[in-house]
């Protein structure tokens, strides 16, 4: 009998094209997603070398990072942004790559539209010039972010040189308490193992809690794997996965579906397979999480006080915490609950899908956002927007006093017009609280859509469980 393997090793082994002694493996890529920000230099270099795109039919582009989320019938007003989006369209036309650009019905955040279109499938290797590519791991794919040189490598050869990653099992068992969500699981993991805890590894999320999550919630978990240092994170496919995929535009049909299903059933980790590392989390012990600092690892249960840097053991850690609290202008030992905020952002590839908008709507229905708080609700894609509107969520948001926007990365990356002003505080459902991430001088508290919506109502950081 063959040695038991993890799903990570199975996908890896099936994609190794060849490997020279002492060199990294040449790994075949099944799906390459491209966006406007990290691709122009790669296309330029292809032209310079006189190369073509090897498999344009395994490549898909969209414009998401640098597009405004205002009225889609109007052109992009920022000339530099407009030029970058136009460049993407030109590059895709020249190299024969399908492109859902700014005005497409299928436009959206690249990590939202891949699964939505049924392009993301179990057992695939998927790359994109974006670190949140791990999102696609929710469907049992090995998906990771790459730099622009690697984008060029994949465009030209459909392959990447990669070293085999270590395997890291993240076991989450038990039942989540009310008010605790997928976002809180991943924020708790990052707080526990640190921003570099998963370096060199791919996470496999398993256990009864992960199994009980829907596909979109699994995407939230996998999405932030990179915030714990892991380039990829995945969940073995199961009936939840297959039901999600069935009937989607690019999912296999008829006899092909049966063939695919048989292959997908072989993917889950074999009994007795070894992992290089492992961590266990009990779902009952989790509280709604929020970050207080400028690294996603600086997360605490929402009821806990802000940590005291003087209690850090290591000098560099103490300095980093002190620097973070100075930037955030927060006092150690005080709770975050009740801390006034200026903006709430609900959206992004982490929490910009339909279940996230439903969660926010469940809080905002019949309530008003605090008059001081600007609340942006940004669907992850045009399809998410249509679905939300069909359910009437947009009317709930507008009635509550929130802004209902067009799809894109928006205030998660703040290079598209949606941004914080210096000094502003924001409760955000996005993935990074780095200094200036949401706008120069802006201060970010990362949290779930439930916590964000509750905070919008209170005008301050709030615990959704105690909302009147």
């Amino acid at each position, binding site marked *: 009998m063959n040695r038991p393997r993890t799903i990570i090793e199975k996908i890896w082994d099936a994609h190794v094209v060849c490997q020279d002694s002492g060199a990294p493996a040449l790994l075949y890529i099944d799906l390459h997603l491209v966006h406007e920000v990290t691709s122009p230099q790669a296309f*330029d270099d292809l032209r310079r070398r006189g190369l073509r795109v090897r498999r344009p*039919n395994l490549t898909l582009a969209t414009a998401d990072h640098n597009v405004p989320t205002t009225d889609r019938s109007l052109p992009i007003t920022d000339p530099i942004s407009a030029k970058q989006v136009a*460049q993407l369209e030109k590059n895709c036309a020249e190299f024969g790559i399908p492109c859902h650009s700014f005005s497409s019905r299928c436009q959206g955040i690249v990590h939202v539209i891949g699964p939505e279109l049924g392009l993301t499938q179990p057992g695939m290797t998927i790359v994109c010039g974006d670190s949140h590519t791990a999102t696609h791991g929710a469907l049992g794919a090995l998906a990771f972010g790459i730099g622009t040189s690697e984008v060029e490598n994949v465009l030209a050869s459909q392959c990447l040189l990669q070293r085999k990653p270590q395997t890291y099992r993240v076991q989450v068992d038990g039942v989540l308490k009310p008010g605790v969500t997928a976002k809180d699981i991943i924020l708790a993991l990052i707080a526990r193992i640190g921003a570099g805890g998963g370096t060199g590894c791919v996470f496999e999320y398993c256990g009864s809690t992960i199994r009980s999550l829907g596909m979109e919630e699994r995407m939230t978990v996998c999405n932030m794997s990179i915030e714990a240092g892991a380039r990829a994170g995945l969940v073995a496919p199961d009936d939840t996965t297959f039901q999600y995929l069935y009937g989607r535009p690019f999912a296999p049909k008829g006899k092909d579906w049966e063939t695919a299903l048989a292959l997908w059933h072989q993917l889950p980790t074999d009994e007795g397979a070894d992992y290089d590392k492992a961590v266990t989390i009990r779902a009952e012990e989790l509280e709604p999480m929020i970050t207080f600092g400028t690294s996603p690892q600086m997360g605490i249960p929402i009821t806990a006080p802000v940590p005291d840097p003087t209690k850090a053991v290591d000098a*560099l850690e103490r300095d980093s915490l002190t620097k973070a609290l100075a930037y955030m202008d927060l006092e150690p030992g005080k709770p975050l609950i009740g801390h006034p905020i200026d903006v709430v952002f609900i959206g992004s590839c982490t929490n910009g899908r339909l279940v996230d908008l439903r969660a926010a709507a469940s809080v905002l229905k019949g309530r008003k956002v605090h008059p001081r708080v600007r609340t942006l609700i940004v669907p992850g894609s045009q399809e998410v927007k249509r679905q939300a509107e069909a359910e009437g969520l947009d009317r709930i948001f507008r009635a509550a006093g929130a802004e209902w926007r067009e799809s894109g990365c928006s205030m998660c990356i703040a290079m598209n017009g949606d941004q914080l002003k210096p000094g502003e505080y924001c409760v955000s459902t996005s993935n990074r609280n780095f200094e200036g991430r949401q706008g120069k001088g802006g201060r970010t508290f990362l949290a779930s859509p439930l916590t964000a919506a509750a905070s919008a109502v209170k005008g301050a950081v709030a615990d959704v469980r105690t909302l009147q």
Partner: protein
Amino acid sequence: MNKFTTFQSRLVPLPVDNVDTDQIIPARFLKTVSKDGLGDQLFYDWRYDAEGKPRPEFILNRPEAKGAQILLAGDNFGCGSSREHAPWALTQFGFRAIISTSFADIFRQNALKNSLLPIMVPRDVHAELFRLVERNPDIEVTVNLADQKLILPDGRVVEFPIDAFSKQCLLEGVDELGYILKREAAIAAYEARRILSINTLSQA
């Protein structure tokens, strides 16, 4: 890619853990469609104030940083976004190596593709380098990639790890794409033997 040669340089200390690529180059500078001009935007929000004037206290603005080719930084350097603009900005500023206790995976890969050497050292050496440079900003260390050695001012030698393939690519100035394209026959054979149809997008 240029061949990576042995060099001697002063160190620029940046004693912060988890320096993310948004600090190395903020997202608003990513609207460019070229690789040029990024060196001026390196660490922009730490380097310049709201009016765009250099903050005199920030290390890159101090006279001792001028001409230095090595950045000495905290744990998990380069975490966050996959933007290759980060190593582009660092190399355009003049850095050729970064010393830390650990590097984020994607940044490390991106750096190696741009002749920027990530040097991983043990915690005690890391802490001592910060002490040495604090005492005397003019100290110099030597980076010898061929022998994988970092030579301290007092002559002590610290070996650092790097995989043989990356080392050879750096020393010979070979870029990966050239290497990959020579495997065309293997790639075509792989495509031919795949069981499941991978013409995903052709259904469109």
